């Protein structure tokens, strides 16, 4: 059985970001999460996004990062399409230009851009964290912070189960096909589901017996093999993350002039290019994905 790569998983490396304890990285991710949700200002979100890309560069994870973004970005482009003709924004709206029966609104472009950037900000930082920390280290440090061991084990096991089920599913599918199963897409997937899930339940039963035989949940003192260090540098990164997000949050909440939804105006040409660009980008992605599915 060969290992199957989960698209979002650790990228081995030895960059400065790889060497940092996962906890400070998690603080950064949480901080960015808060920042992205309290502002709609596209320039600030864009700045945070650029900072994320800087981290991607430092961590040297561009190829793996792009592999995820290439799926995520075209899908997020639909936000621009939908928002520009139906903004999630309080009325009144200011029209910019008409496209057939639709009107592209000023607030729509603003809202679409900020939603897109918000998604990119959050995912970029989250990916930097996930791709630079070994899952075992993440779990080990989470345990140190106080996550119960059982909870931790469930998380680890779930992460393990995804590629296992994937490979089991492939085996079943091949077996079904070799026995003359016709059809592609859902018609082929459905009959394979039952054996995969029955197998998964059986696996879990056997695993629980075998874990119990290895003293899982034993009453005494539990030790940990995975040692995670928390040094001065980690503390520094944590403090920087907390400070940055704290200061940003405060500034964004206090400074009311940062709401540019009425002041930042878009020219009709810009609106049209953005609208059609997003549409074409999304359609290209769909066409590409369909081709991939149909040829598989």
């Amino acid at each position: 059985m060969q290992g199957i790569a989960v698209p979002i998983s650790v990228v081995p490396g030895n960059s400065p970001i790889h060497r940092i304890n996962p906890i400070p990285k998690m603080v950064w991710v949480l901080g960015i999460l808060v920042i992205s949700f309290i502002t709609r200002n596209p320039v600030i979100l864009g700045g945070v996004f650029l900072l994320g890309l800087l981290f991607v560069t430092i961590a040297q994870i561009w190829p793996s990062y792009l592999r995820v973004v290439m799926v995520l970005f075209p899908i997020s482009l639909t936000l621009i399409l939908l928002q520009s003709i139906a903004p999630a924004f309080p009325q009144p709206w200011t029209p910019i230009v008409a496209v057939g029966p639709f009107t592209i609104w000023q607030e729509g472009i603003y809202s679409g851009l900020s939603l897109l950037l918000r998604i990119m900000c959050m995912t970029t930082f989250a990916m930097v964290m996930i791709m630079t920390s070994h899952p075992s280290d993440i779990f080990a440090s989470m345990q140190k912070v106080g996550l119960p061991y059982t909870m931790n084990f469930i998380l680890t096991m779930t992460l393990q189960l995804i590629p296992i089920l994937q490979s089991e599913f492939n085996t079943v599918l091949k077996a079904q096909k070799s026995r003359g199963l016709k059809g592609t897409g859902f018609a082929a997937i459905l009959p394979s589901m039952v054996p995969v899930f029955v197998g998964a339940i059986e696996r879990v039963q056997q695993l629980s017996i075998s874990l119990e035989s290895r003293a899982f949940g034993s009453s005494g003192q539990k030790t940990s093999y995975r040692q995670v260090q928390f040094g001065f540098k980690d503390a520094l990164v944590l403090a920087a993350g907390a400070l940055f997000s704290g200061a940003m949050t405060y500034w964004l909440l206090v400074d009311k002039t940062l709401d540019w939804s009425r002041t930042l105006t878009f020219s009709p040409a810009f609106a049209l290019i953005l609208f059609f660009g997003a549409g074409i980008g999304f359609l290209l992605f769909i066409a590409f994905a369909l081709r991939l599915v149909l040829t598989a």
Partner: protein
Amino acid sequence: MAKGKPVIEFKDVSFGYAAASDREFAIENINLTIYEGEYVALLGLNGAGKTTLQLCINGVIPNSIMGEFSGEFSVYGQDTEVTSVREMAKLVGMVFDNPEFQLSQMSVAEEIALGMENIGFSFEEMNRIIPEVLKIVGLSGLEERSPFALSGGQQQRLSIASALAMRPKILVMDEPTSNVDPIGKEEIFAVAAKLNKEENMTIVMAEHEVEVMAAYADRVIVMDEGKIVLNGTPKEVFSETALFERLGLRTPQVTELSAKLAKKGTRKFSKGYPVTLDEAVSSLR
């Protein structure tokens, strides 16, 4: 072989799985005593009750598997109906027959560490023991590999290593060599024999490989339909060639050959049929 004190005692033990539709007993009226430092091999067709018998030893039956249990059973004087499986784990190491289903961790080293973490070994101890057990099972250098990226045979060795790491007094193995190549099979038997000799570990192993069993085991127990039908040294047990044939089991080929020669009258075996190749060579010379 000098017998130690009795460590595993079955007194009239019967067990029937609650899930079984016909309410039949998987093992019935088992009376068996296994002594410290013994190397016991269990033999029998699939469904003869070998696995059920082994699951009793660390208390998975009757604690974790539902069913009808009767009789008295103890390991090192501890009643498994009272002591939980997780406490029993400090005494009894289990290796199950489906290696892939026993693994759960991200790397080989962590997989081995799991059991040790649960019973509180220190980090230094774990760091010392992990390379040690990996060397014993022949997996050195694979510490950082994902357990799921190993071959079936390697996974089986890993599950043995994981059990060994907890320093059990009794090692119970259910067909531990089913996925291993012929040389690996011999190696695993030899590892078990070494632990048995050097650390006086009691070994209970269910297997189909009669040749290897004859060479290493102190005692062979043959099961059929939930009952023990033969119990003795390999030589005693494998001499019953007729019974073996009736049960649908094989004896070692040299024993079979000798029995056929004896039947034809070409040879007489005054000291009983040989069970290993070396014995056969000397007695057929």
